[in-house]
C-alpha cells in the first residue's frame, strides 16, 4: 500500500534579549549554574513578574516577518505541571490570545516549486531550567539559569508531507529569525528546538492518522532522521496489524534511536488559567509602525531582488539569500567584481567547498569578499583562465598573498595571450606528436572534433594552464587543417 505522512512542527525559539522575559536576570549563555536565576525566576513567594518590552518587540517582528496578524491585545496564561526544572509549578505562556496570529512561511521544494506552510500562531512564553541527570549521590542536579528565558513557540499547520519538506521549513525559519535578529540561531546551544508531530495515512485518505510527537530535536540532521524513522516505524506497525498510539517520543541523535516517553493516558491535564500576576498586553499602533520601520529585508524579498536585479537563477538566489552572512558576502563579491553570476558561482562553488572542508564559518573566511571579487575581475579581463583562478583562490585561502594580483604576479600565472608565443608552443606540441597529427588529418571530418581535444590538452599542459584556451583552440584548428 502507498502511504503518505502528515507532519506539523512546534518550534521553540529563544529570543535574543539581554534579560529574562519577566525579570532583570541575564540570559547570557554558559554562566555558572544558578548564577543567573533571581528570586522571580525561582518563583519565590511575593515576587511579581514584569514583562520585558524587547521580548514583545521581537515577537511582533516575527509576526511581521511571516505576514501574520498581530493580536493587539494578548494575554498570559498559566500552564500547570510539576517538574523540578519548573520552579513555579507552572509555565507562564499564552493560550487563548497569543501575540502572533496566523501567517505563513514559504519553502522551496527539490523540484524548484514552492510551497506555503501555514503558521497557526506563535506565542510568548518562558523557558524552563535544565535537569542534569548525572549522578549526584543518586539525585538530579537542577540549573535554573535558563528558567525564564523568553521564547516564542511557533506552531505550524500539518502542511508538510516528508522529512525533506520539514527540514526545508526549519531552515527557512532559521533564516527568518536570524535575519530579524530575534534569535542567535545557535541550535547546538538549544536556541531553536523542534518538536515534530508525525502521522501516516494511506495515500488519498483524507482522515488523519494517530500522531506522535518527537520532542526537542536541535539539529536539522537529527530532525530529518527522526522523522524518517518515525514514518517508517508507524507504517511497519500498521502493516503488521498494529495501531499507532498517541504518545510523546524522544529521539537520541547519537544512537539514532527513538523511544516512547509518555503516552496519552498519562498525559498531563495542564489546567490553564489566566495569569493573575500579568495584565493584558496592549500593543499600540505607534509601536507597530516603529517596528515595521525597523524590519530588515526578509529572505524572500532578498531572493526576489537577487533574481530581478542581479539576474540570478531561482536556485542560486534561494541558496544565497538564505543566510544573512552569506548574502552579504555574495553581494560584496558581486559589487567588487561587477559580475553577479560569476560571484554566485564562486561563492557557492569554490568558497563554500573550502569552508565546508575546513569547517569554517563564512564570517571567518580567510578569503574576503573583496579578495574574491578582485580574483573574478582578473578572470573577466582575461588575465587568468577559470582554471588558473582556482589555483589563485587556493593560494589566497592559504594566505599566500593579500590579493589576486599579488598571487598572479608572484607565481607568474598570467595567462599567455601573445599569439606568437602560443603559435610557437603549438608547433612544438605538433612536432612532438607527429603520429597523432597524421591520424587527425587522415580521419573523417566528423571525427576530428573529438580528436582535437587531445592536442588542446597537450598545449594547456605545456603552458602549465596559462595559455588562453580559446586562442589555443583557434590556432590549433588552423594549423591542423593546414
Amino acid at each position, binding site marked *: 500500500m502507498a502511504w503518505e505522512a502528515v507532519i506539523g512542527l512546534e518550534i521553540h525559539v529563544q529570543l535574543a534579549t539581554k534579560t529574562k522575559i519577566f525579570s*532583570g536576570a541575564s540570559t547570557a549563555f554558559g554562566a555558572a549554574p*544558578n548564577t543567573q536565576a533571581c528570586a522571580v525566576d525561582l518563583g519565590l513567594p511575593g515576587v511579581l513578574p*514584569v514583562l520585558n518590552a524587547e521580548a514583545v518587540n521581537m515577537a511582533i517582528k516575527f509576526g511581521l516577518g511571516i505576514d501574520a496578524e498581530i493580536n493587539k491585545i494578548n494575554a498570559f496564561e498559566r500552564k*500547570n505541571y510539576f517538574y523540578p526544572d519548573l520552579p513555579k509549578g507552572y509555565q507562564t505562556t499564552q493560550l487563548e490570545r497569543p501575540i502572533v496570529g496566523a501567517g505563513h512561511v514559504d519553502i522551496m521544494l527539490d523540484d524548484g516549486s514552492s510551497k506555503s506552510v501555514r503558521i497557526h500562531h506563535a506565542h510568548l512564553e518562558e523557558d524552563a531550567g535544565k535537569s542534569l*541527570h548525572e549522578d549526584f549521590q543518586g539525585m*538530579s542536579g537542577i540549573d535554573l539559569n535558563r528558567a525564564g528565558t523568553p521564547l516564542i513557540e511557533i506552531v505550524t499547520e500539518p502542511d508538510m508531507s516528508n522529512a525533506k519538506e520539514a527540514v526545508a521549513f526549519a531552515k527557512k525559519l532559521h533564516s527568518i529569525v536570524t535575519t530579524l535578529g530575534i534569535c542567535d540561531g545557535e541550535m547546538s546551544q538549544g536556541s531553536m528546538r523542534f518538536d515534530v508531530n508525525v502521522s501516516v495515512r494511506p495515500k488519498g485518505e483524507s482522515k488523519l492518522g494517530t500522531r506522535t510527537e518527537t520532542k526537542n530535536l536541535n539539529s536539522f540532521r537529527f530532525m530529518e532522521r527522526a522523522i524518517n524513522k518515525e514514518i517508517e516505524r508507524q507504517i511497519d506497525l500498521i502493516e503488521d496489524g498494529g495501531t499507532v498510539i498517541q504518545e510523546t517520543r524522544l529521539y537520541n541523535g547519537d544512537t539514532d534511536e527513538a523511544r516512547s516517553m509518555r503516552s496519552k493516558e498519562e498525559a498531563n*491535564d495542564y489546567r490553564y488559567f489566566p495569569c493573575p500576576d500579568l495584565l493584558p498586553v496592549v500593543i499600540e499602533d505607534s509601536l507597530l509602525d516603529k517596528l515595521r520601520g525597523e524590519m530588515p529585508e526578509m529572505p524572500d524579498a532578498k531572493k526576489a531582488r537577487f533574481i530581478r536585479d542581479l539576474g540570478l537563477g531561482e536556485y542560486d538566489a534561494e541558496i544565497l539569500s538564505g543566510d544573512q552572512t552569506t548574502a552579504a558576502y555574495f553581494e560584496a563579491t558581486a559589487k567588487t567584481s561587477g559580475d553577479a553570476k560569476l560571484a554566485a558561482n564562486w561563492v557557492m562553488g569554490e568558497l563554500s567547498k573550502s569552508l565546508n572542508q575546513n569547517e569554517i564559518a563564512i564570517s571567518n573566511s580567510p578569503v574576503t569578499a573583496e579578495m574574491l571579487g578582485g580574483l573574478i575581475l582578473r578572470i573577466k579581463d582575461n588575465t587568468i583562465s577559470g582554471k588558473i583562478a582556482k589555483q589563485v583562490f587556493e593560494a589566497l585561502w592559504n594566505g599566500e598573498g593579500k590579493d589576486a594580483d599579488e598571487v598572479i604576479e608572484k607565481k607568474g600565472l598570467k595567462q599567455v595571450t601573445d599569439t606568437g608565443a602560443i603559435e610557437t608552443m603549438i608547433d612544438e606540441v605538433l612536432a612532438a606528436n607527429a603520429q597523432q597529427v597524421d591520424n587527425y588529418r587522415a580521419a573523417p571530418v566528423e571525427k576530428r572534433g573529438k580528436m582535437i581535444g587531445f592536442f588542446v590538452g597537450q598545449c594547456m599542459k605545456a603552458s602549465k594552464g596559462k595559455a588562453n584556451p580559446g586562442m589555443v583552440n583557434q590556432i590549433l584548428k588552423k594549423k591542423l587543417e593546414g
Partner: protein
Amino acid sequence: MAIDRKEVEAVAHLARLSIDETQIERTTESLQGILGMIDQMQAIDTKGIEPMAHPLDAVQRLRADEVTETDQREKLQQHAPATEEGLFLVPKVIE
C-alpha cells in the same frame, strides 16, 4: 455539573495535594458548591460582552531589557535542602 470522588482524587494528585480519606467527602461537597456557583454564572447571557483577561481594567507595563539582577546564588541556595557545585539537588528525575 457534578464532581465525584474520583475526580477530586485526580485533581488533588495533579495539584500534589494530599487529602486524607476523611477529608475527601467534605472537599467533594465544597467543590460541588463552587461548581454550582459557576453553573449559575454561566447561565447568565453574556452575548456581546467582551471577555476580560484580567479583573483589573488596566494594561501591562513593560520593563526595559536591562540587566538589573546580580548573582545571589549564595543567599538563594540557603533555602535549598541540598545543593552541589551550584546546582539544586532534587530526587532523581527519570524521563
